[in-house]
């Protein structure tokens, strides 16, 4: 240790990390910011992390809706139960649509990283079509239920079902609007740093919606017909 470091105030000395916690085999020291060394994290990291925290809070909100559904699923008030109204073929197609759109959204992220505008726009358009297909199928299901008088006002089970699945559908609809916005912004503003950050957040949002749908189709639909 040099004299300069030894005489420096304690707060300014580099913190020793004898066990190299979080520095896998990186003996020369990590330059990763955010641990009090190396300066502030780049904006891209801060924005992504902040949006990650938002997504986790959104998932907690969905957890509350799932809890409500789990508690109320028996309260059919002599109305239809899940076994009577769920059409698993539709659910399978919806699941396929959303999973594929998540994959194509990943392609859009890759195309954006490689700065390939045409591939990006094509992948985003594919993501939009698959997401819109999902939404159309879900709206058809809801319309059929409402037409038969099995709306959210029929029973506690249907109230919680419409709230949970409808909330996910609203998220998908908002995501589709955001998707179109990002296509337009990349088209008109190009690969600017702020546009790249927004698109990264959109991709996070879209993948998270697919994770929530995994819980929806398992807990609501598949376990609902057991």
């Amino acid at each position, binding site marked *: 240790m040099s004299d300069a470091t030894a005489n420096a105030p304690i707060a300014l000395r580099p913190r020793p990390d004898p066990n190299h916690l979080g520095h896998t085999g990186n003996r020369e020291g990590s330059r990763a910011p955010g641990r009090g060394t190396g300066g502030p994290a780049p904006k891209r990291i801060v924005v992504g992390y902040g949006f990650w925290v938002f997504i986790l809070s959104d998932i907690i909100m969905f957890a509350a809706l799932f809890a409500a559904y789990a508690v109320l699923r028996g309260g059919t008030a002599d109305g239809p139960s899940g076994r009577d109204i769920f059409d698993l073929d539709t659910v399978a197609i919806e699941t396929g649509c959303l999973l594929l759109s998540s*994959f194509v959204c990943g392609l859009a992220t890759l195309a954006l990283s490689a700065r390939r505008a045409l591939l990006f726009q094509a992948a985003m358009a594919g993501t939009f079509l698959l997401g819109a297909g999902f939404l159309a199928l879900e709206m058809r299901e809801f319309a059929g239920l409402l037409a038969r008088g099995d709306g959210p006002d029929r029973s506690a089970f249907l109230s919680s079902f419409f709230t949970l699945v409808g909330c996910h559908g609203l998220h998908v609809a908002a995501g589709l609007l955001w998707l179109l916005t990002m296509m337009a912004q990349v088209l008109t503003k190009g690969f600017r740093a702020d546009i790249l950050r927004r698109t990264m957040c959109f991709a996070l949002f879209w993948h998270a919606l697919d994770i929530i749908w995994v819980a929806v189709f398992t807990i609501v639909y598949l376990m609902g017909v057991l």
Partner: protein
Amino acid sequence: MSDTVSQDEGGDQRRHADTAPGDEFGQEDIGAGLRGYSIGLGLAALLTVASFVVLRTQLVWAPAIPLALIVFAIAQMGVHLVFFLHITTGPDNTNNVMALAFGVLIVVLVVGGSVWIMGNMNRNMMPMGPTAPMESGMPGH
């Protein structure tokens, strides 16, 4: 400060920096990233198909089907987190994993706690018919 700025452009500098979830590290090569997404898609599709198959066939002992479905769902969420959101165990992901762990804790508390408490109440409280007035809701004899 200069390397912090250049990290926004991506490239090799990112190797030692924190990463954001879903970040592609600004790589120029589509092929390497495509491989990850393809593996993720394959595994997720496999798990989805497995869920539907388990439900519609006699492959799994009937009382164990809900458990099997939950296992498949959690596995698929893990696949999505790893291959689509790029959550890893690496040191650059510590912050993301800690936030995720906290989120999972709250989700487990909210869902598990609600189901537990409401199940207890359903078992231990007097059944109340739809015609029973609320005033006589006290436990009777």
